[in-house]
């Protein structure tokens, strides 16, 4: 893996007004980098802002504050159509619900070719058809499927159509927003493996958003843990699973069941209690071990450090 940064997210904030004075801080100042060719997993409980992060990065929402730098260029704020077009082509998204993310009135051909049409990537109808058929076969469907409508497909097949749509414009970066959580367990592995194969083939970079920790560990190189709009811990996936530091991460990991009766008998749920933190000091993101960042106060930082020096 090269250490070239593809995407930099700096102090990204996304606040939604829910009432006259009420503001929901869905994403509250998170920063992270994604390197070229890696898969960055983003985990956290429901409503912690992981999907909002993904959607804000791809500009479905306008960020309240902060920067998103893609290939060295700031992609937020006012942009000309040309700049947006380039960005829209290089960054694609795969959605959580394959039943809702495909227009029920469009054929699979038109759905997949939408990006091609927007960016004018194919010149003739024959070329367009050939490209769609090639994509369909690449994601494990038949080219005969091109003229059918989404409701004729199963959930797993629909998600493959969604993947083909994202791939159509030769993107560099794909945001996968819980792409497997709506699927049957037996299909999940197939789709994840497909994503992995495509990554190898096309040198793609993924932002993989999920709440299924075992799946995230399987696919991700690095993982960020979010809690209530903040990034609480970020590390290589091996490191994170071996040495979780932040109490919330520990709590999350303690919730994964394993198919091992001995382990299961002794598995204890660690319950995260946010009040254990000293709130007199605003916590900061600090590097406790090399490439292992944790959101902590100065005091906690010292404790974490000594804890790991002994290991």
């Amino acid at each position, binding site marked *: 893996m090269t250490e070239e940064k593809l995407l930099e997210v700096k102090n990204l904030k996304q606040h939604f007004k829910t009432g006259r004075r009420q503001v929901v801080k869905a994403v509250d100042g998170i920063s992270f980098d994604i390197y070229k060719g890696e898969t960055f997993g983003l985990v956290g409980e429901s409503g912690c802002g992981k999907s909002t992060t993904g959607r804000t990065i791809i*500009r*479905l929402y306008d960020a309240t504050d902060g920067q998103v730098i893609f290939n060295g260029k700031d992609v937020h704020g006012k942009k000309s159509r040309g700049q947006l*077009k380039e960005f829209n082509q290089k960054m694609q*998204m795969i*959605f959580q*619900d394959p039943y*809702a*993310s*495909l227009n029920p*009135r469009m054929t699979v051909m038109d759905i997949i070719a939408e990006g091609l049409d927007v960016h004018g990537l194919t010149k003739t109808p024959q070329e367009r058809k050939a490209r769609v058929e090639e994509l369909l076969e690449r994601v494990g469907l038949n080219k005969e499927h091109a003229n059918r409508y989404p409701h004729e497909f199963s959930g797993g097949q629909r998600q493959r159509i969604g993947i083909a749509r994202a791939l159509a414009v030769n993107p560099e970066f794909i945001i996968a927003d819980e792409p497997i959580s709506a699927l049957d367990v037996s299909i999940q592995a197939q789709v994840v493996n497909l994503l992995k194969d495509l990554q190898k083939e096309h040198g793609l970079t993924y932002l993989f958003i999920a709440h299924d920790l075992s799946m995230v560990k399987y696919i991700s190189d690095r993982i960020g843990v979010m809690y209530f709009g903040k990034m609480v811990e970020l590390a290589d996936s091996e490191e994170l699973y071996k040495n979780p530091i932040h109490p919330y991460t520990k709590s999350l990991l303690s919730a994964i069941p394993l198919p091992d009766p001995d382990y299961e008998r002794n598995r204890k749920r660690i319950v995260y209690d946010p009040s254990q933190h000293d709130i007199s000091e605003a916590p900061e993101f600090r590097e406790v071990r090399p490439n292992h960042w944790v959101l902590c106060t100065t005091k906690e930082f010292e404790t974490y450090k000594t804890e790991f020096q002994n290991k």
Partner: protein
Amino acid sequence: MIDFWKRFKQNHMAVIGFVIILIILLTAIFAKWLTPYDPYEMDPVNRLQSPNGEFWFGTDQFGRDIFSRIVYGARISLQVGIIAVGFSFIVGTIMGLIAGYSGGWVDNLISRITDVLFSFPDILLALVIMAILGSSLNNLMLAIGIVYVPIFARIARGTVLNIKDSLYIEAARSMGVRPITILWRHILPNAMAPLIVQITLSFAFAILAEAALSFLGLGVSPDTPSWGIMLSEAKDWMELSWWTAIFPGIAITLAVFSFNIMGDGLRDALDPRLRNEKS
């Protein structure tokens, strides 16, 4: 589509309505070959003849053949229906799509305009518009069209609000599809079902409105064979000769009734909630 036809077929009343509409449409198209007499030709000798072998539906006070006039009247009724409803469908749907998709002050503005139009009773509003524009067939169609604009605007807006937050719209937006393309290719096809139903129902209203306005003397010129005008003229003679009023009345009733039952059938066939119960 085949699915839809199957569900539509189960509703026998709707199919009957559809067939009657088809017959009316064909009579309007082939009026020239179906009529034994010229609908404008007056014949003082054969005034107010009761229905007989020669004049199937009798003749009116000028001796014009009522059957021929009713057949030609289908043309006027359908013409008014198609153009007036077409106008309100196009204008109303565009207004509704824009209001629903853009939101904010645009939505507010368009919604308030439709509210104002809605606050007048249909016929009264059409009367006022006709009084301002003067009576002619074109103005009649325009007036009826304007009256039904807000209905389409509201239905379109409501459906757009429903659709615009769905994931496939977000998917299109994330790919950089232009808003106008999103409206045209993604939102409109998904918003069509309730609009199609409204078209058939409005058709019935438009035919009625044309008849009512013609009856009140604000429609087309009095010698035109329009069902409303025939009814209006018949009111002075119907005590003597019932056929002058009955047959145009039946024609109006039949047309309106057919459009209504077909609209009901369409709605049932297109409504996704009913879809699940039946299958």
